């Protein structure tokens, strides 16, 4: 394991801020893994810490294939963890909306440019991402439909689902998009949680990355073969919203739960009276893919996303 400086900058009160990367093996730039970009991505950083330890052990055993190099960048934005902010400490900007970046621009733009410069050229790029909505997911690999995405490669992670998604207006300023445009096969791995540590799904995320690296001939590691992923289009997921009322969100199902059409899957509870303000019904048979995880919800909040007409 070699520690390297990805980017370093001077700050007014925190001294030098340095983004570190860790390389395993030598030679061809084979796989690059990027962790937390936001200061609330505890799960993403935790997965990187587990992966770092595992890759170090594998390297020590000679299990990184000769002539292959892996780069791991656990966090681009640890200052925001330190001050309890989600976005960049000084101006609240989002590094994952700053790509491809500008080396002469503002701080997050400079970080994006420096990181993209360091991670371009790798054959495979993996990012542990969080979604723009707070909540819990079934673990999955997400790919943007840039025209360069490969679902068959995404399948090699052996995660339960591969989700393809149409480009949103802001996607062109994300790492994943810019990675793909520069020729790296890029994947976003969603492990289920963000602001809390989910040990089981963190371990599964580590296994899925090690499985992928093994199948791509970058490391030698014996592990369970995982799933043959179900490929979903994000547009096929059905949103269930709190259309009628706000209040406490008492959810009765979890990601992965199979539900029947007409089944009550949550209650919205009036915070003053304790009365049920609304029952949330499953409008279709299917599997819960996403759940909101806030204790209380506004009206018109997305509470669930359901995979229609699929069974466990």
């Amino acid at each position, binding site marked *: 394991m070699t520690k390297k400086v990805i980017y370093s*900058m*001077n*700050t*007014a009160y925190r001294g030098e801020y340095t983004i570190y990367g860790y390389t395993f093996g030598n030679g061809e730039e084979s796989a690059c893994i990027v962790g937390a970009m936001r200061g609330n991505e505890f799960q993403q950083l935790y997965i990187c810490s587990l992966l770092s330890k595992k890759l170090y052990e594998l390297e020590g055993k000679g299990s990184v294939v000769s002539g292959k190099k892996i780069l791991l960048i656990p966090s681009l934005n640890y200052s925001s963890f330190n001050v309890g902010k*989600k*976005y960049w400490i*000084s*101006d*609240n900007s989002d590094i994952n*909306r700053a790509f491809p970046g500008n080396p*002469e*621009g*503002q*701080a997050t*733009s*400079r970080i994006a440019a420096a990181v993209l410069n360091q991670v371009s050229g790798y054959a495979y790029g993996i990012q542990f991402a969080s979604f*723009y*909505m707070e909540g819990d997911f079934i673990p999955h690999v997400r790919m943007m439909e840039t025209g360069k995405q490969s679902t068959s490669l995404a399948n090699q992670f052996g995660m339960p689902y591969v989700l393809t998604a149409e480009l949103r*207006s*802001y996607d*062109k300023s994300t790492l994943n998009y810019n990675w793909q445009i520069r020729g790296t096969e890029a994947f976003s791995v969603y492990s289920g949680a963000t602001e809390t540590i989910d040990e089981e799904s963190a371990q599964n995320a580590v296994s899925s990355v090690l499985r992928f690296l093994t199948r791509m001939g970058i490391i030698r590691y014996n592990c369970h073969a995982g799933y043959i992923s179900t490929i979903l289009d994000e547009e096929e997921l059905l*949103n269930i*919203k709190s259309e009628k*009322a*706000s*209040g406490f969100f008492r959810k009765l199902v979890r990601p992965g739960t199979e539900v029947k059409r007409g089944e009550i899957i949550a209650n919205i509870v009036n*915070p*003053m009276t304790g009365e049920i303000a609304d029952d949330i019904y499953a409008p279709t048979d299917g599997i819960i893919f996403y759940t909101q995880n806030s204790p*209380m*919800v*506004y*009206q*018109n*909040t*997305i509470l669930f996303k359901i995979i229609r007409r699929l069974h466990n």
Partner: protein
Amino acid sequence: MIETVVSADMLIEEVVKVKKNHLAPDFPSGKEKRLSIVSGLHGDEVAGQYICYELIRRIKMQFEKLKGIVDVYPFINPMGLEAQSRVIPVFDTDMNTLFPGSEEGTFGEYTAARVLQDIKGSDICIDIHSSSVYLKEIPQVRINEDVADILIPYAARMNMDVIWVHPSSTVMAGSLVHSLNEAGVKAMVVESGVALKIDYEYANRIVDGIFCLMSDMGIWDEPVEDSCISKIARDSDVAFVNAESSGIFIPAVSHSARIGKGDVIGQIVNVLTGSVEETIYSPRAGIVFSLREYPVIEEGSLVARIFGGTDD
């Protein structure tokens, strides 16, 4: 007539409502032109609050001159205005990245979709901004390159110092004006001053500019002359000046003043050692178009923009 465009129950008891004031002649013919004025997408930008008040007050003073429709939407992000938050509180999302929004989406996307739908059908829309807490801006219209030829004749009547043709975040994909232009509404951003403050001189000029436009559109039955001939700024006309050190910025020039090439814009000083870390010089002769307002600086912070001439 006050109308509610979108409303949603908040967590406990309160309701968030986006409202508009629909100002129209008492006996409309059905062929009236329609101008929409939008403000408060960013909750820390308050100049638009005064502009909406003053515009409505002046229209009501001489209501007989109103020959078309003026829809005023003063607060698109009302929770942000109450909470002094640029973004949508709780969701921590910039409202002006969510357009065109989605009826199926979560709170912010749903609001964006409803607001967009309500404004569609307008002939022209002006989205009023007042910078951020970091920079003070001269009064300007911002438009994106792809619609510049269509919009410049209208922007020129807005009584602003500059029309800046630039892919700013407020006119890029995801913004309200970008979605409106795609929907056939001529939409532009007015930017001036600094967040959290109202510059009444700038604000009154913007109100005068809106009356110029209303007169041209046949909405206001009185000739109105603009007092300012706007200069058109393309990207090559504007130099960005970023800090290369950190500390406290002490300006040496006034905002909107003329500056010569090589003149000192300001210094960045170290508050612990009492030393000057960096003296920042102007790369060209011109006008101080934007000037740093918030004094805490990090490497990369935008200190000024200079408009005019070239670097040579």
